[in-house]
């Protein structure tokens, strides 16, 4: 059965997690994408800096996240997916930082994921094609990292999901790791066969796909059953803005410049029945704080609309996709 979820970032805070989950439930969500990446921000890692959050022991981390777990349970919110901090490899980051990311942050993230009884954790593939010379060599490094996580994933009953990413060429965002659906389907199958279990899946990020002009329907159809989680958000095709679907237009007709019709068709073709999860935290910081509940409700309603479109017997939905 299809559910609707959203990031916890900008809603759920350590100071009073229960209130955040309650707000999500009230807005119409039943699931949440736990923003574990917020605890080790990517911008600081790119500056070769890190905080000491993941220096805590597993027991201390569990203690830290216990109010979150209880708060979500009390509100009836299921943590269905979470985002591992990224990047997990920083070119020019040096051995100490990269070993810490790989061996400490990644592994502890897996334990936190298991603590939440969350079935999926989304990771970023390494961005190394420029340095190593090809996307294949880049994937080989990502695969080494995934291989290192596989035994833990099996033990903890977690599926690791890689998502389609972008690279920047002078500020022009272009195809990055995991953007070729055909290759990714083959790689996921090979990985799972090698590890004798369904340990690797895919997270389709609509915003990233839109930035690099991917054909949504074809991408989703090619992935098929390997698609486990979603990052739903919109942009203008230029910047990674993480806005609400249907926000952007580019013509006088003012029709959506993102292919939401292809998105729905693709999900329908593969009989997607998991969580429609929105990665729209920036919307909450751009609207006034006083409107947070209304904005969340609108995001959930947009999810509800997608839900109707995906239903085998859709009612009248107003706008035709």
């Amino acid at each position: 059965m299809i559910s609707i979820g959203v990031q916890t970032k900008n809603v759920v805070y350590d100071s009073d997690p229960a209130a955040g989950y309650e707000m999500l439930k009230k807005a119409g969500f039943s699931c949440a994408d736990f923003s574990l990446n917020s605890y080790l921000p990517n911008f600081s890692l790119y500056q070769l800096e890190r905080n000491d959050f993941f220096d805590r022991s597993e027991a201390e981390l569990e203690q830290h996240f216990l109010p979150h777990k209880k708060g979500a349970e009390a509100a009836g919110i299921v943590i269905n997916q979470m985002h591992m901090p990224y990047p997990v490899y920083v070119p020019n980051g040096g051995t100490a930082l990269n070993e810490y990311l790989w061996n400490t942050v990644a592994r502890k993230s897996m334990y936190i994921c298991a603590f939440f009884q969350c079935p999926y954790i989304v990771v970023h593939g390494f961005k190394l094609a420029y340095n190593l010379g090809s996307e294949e060599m880049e994937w080989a490094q990502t695969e080494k990292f995934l291989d290192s996580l596989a035994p833990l994933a099996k033990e903890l009953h977690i599926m690791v999901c890689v998502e389609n990413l972008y690279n920047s060429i002078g500020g022009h965002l272009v195809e990055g790791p995991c953007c070729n659906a055909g290759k990714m389907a083959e790689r996921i199958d090979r990985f799972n066969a090698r590890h004798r279990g369904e340990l690797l899946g895919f997270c389709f990020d609509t915003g990233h796909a839109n930035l690099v002009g991917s054909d949504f329907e074809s991408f989703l159809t090619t992935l098929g059953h390997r698609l486990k989680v979603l990052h739903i958000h919109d942009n203008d095709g230029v910047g990674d803005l993480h806005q609400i679907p249907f926000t952007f237009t580019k013509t006088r007709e003012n029709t959506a410049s993102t292919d939401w019709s292809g998105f729905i068709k693709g999900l329908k073709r593969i009989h997607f029945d998991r969580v429609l999860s929105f990665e729209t935290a920036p919307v909450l910081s751009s609207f006034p704080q006083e409107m947070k509940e209304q904005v969340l409700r609108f995001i959930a309603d947009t999810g509800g609309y997608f839900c109707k479109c995906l239903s085998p017997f859709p009612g009248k939905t107003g706008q035709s996709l």
Partner: protein
Amino acid sequence: MLAWIFDEEGDKRILQQEDKRLEIIVSPRGIVDIERPGQGVMDLSQAGFGQAMLDFTMCCPEYELESVGKRKRTSRKRPLVSEHPEKLYDKVRPILDRCTQEEMSLPAAYAPYPCRDTKREDLKELLIRLTEECIRICGRAGCTSLIVRPLFSGVKPGDEWEVNRKYYLHFLDLARENQIMILLENQCRDQNGHLVRGICADGREAAQWVDRLNEEAKEERFGFCMDAGACSLCGQDMQDFTCSLGKRIKAVILRDCDGHTECSMLPFTCAAGGQSLTDWLGLIRGLRETGFDGQLILDFSDTAGAFSPILRPGLMKLARSTAEYFSWQIGLEKLLRKYPSIVLFGAGNMCRNYMKCYGQQYPPLFTCDNNQAIWGTRFCGLEVKPPAALKGLPDTCGILICNIYYREIEKQLEDMGIHNIEFFNDEYMPAFHFDRLEG
């Protein structure tokens, strides 16, 4: 060797060192007036372009196709090609004649196509008639390849291959008769003003299309033209795209854009913060990997159109140098294979990049440097010698300058009476290593 940018002697040296198999072709759009082609063709010829594209879209542009049959024409003096495809030859004749006069050949051509955002579904028959005319004219003009965009408007999702299979095979006999290779091309799709990947934008699928068409043709009558601009507009990994198609790529359209707006700019002119917005590294890596030796079609129509006609001769020369630079970068390993032995000049990052990427396959005898303090030391496995050591080298040994102060060092070596001076460049290496030398 980059000296062609600055002197004619250098230019000749480069052309000799390459196999001359990669053809540099210029698109006349934005430069040559179809009715008065004299000055434009002359500008191109004087800039050193010996080959131009026969661009039929100049005679029958997108906007004309979009309005065909829609508007009442007030003037009947000039028949529109879209209404009279049989007039295409008359329309293109001035440019054909002028190119003949300037001894400029026309090895590649582009058939008319509709706008990317067209809603018209009634243009198929007209496109067929126009393309047939193009093939006949190509045959007469000695043109060997014709780019024909796939049909998309009115084609139902899922029917793309079958509709286009019939469309392309329709031209098979005529193409064979006129000795033309038909090139499919990667397309953008207009998603309400946002250009995304369209037909043939998936390299693997496009390769299958070409193979299946050739199987049906029972000969290699179909190939692929990679439009680098369309790839950039769709944010594609150009290296991956190129490698997916491999030797099926017979032509590459070299044009720059900002990644969002459909336009054809001179490469390296779309930049921000001192960085190009197009993935030239991916394109060059891909074309090197696949051993591309086809047609390199430079299209900078929007840059040319924006420049004053007074400035265009200078722009044409820069454009020619830019195309040659790409040709040189794509064929960089040809330079390394040219001499039985080589010596490097420079013991810094560029030397190190050479050694990391090519040192095993093309090992230099030694390197030399002007820095006296490092003479007699070893760098990346090479002995560092003073420049005077170059004097005793055999005539067949090439000297590769591995330092960005190319021209200054070149002059130093020429003053020493050294020959076989070449430039090495590490801007587009097969790989880049993480650690750089300090200082």
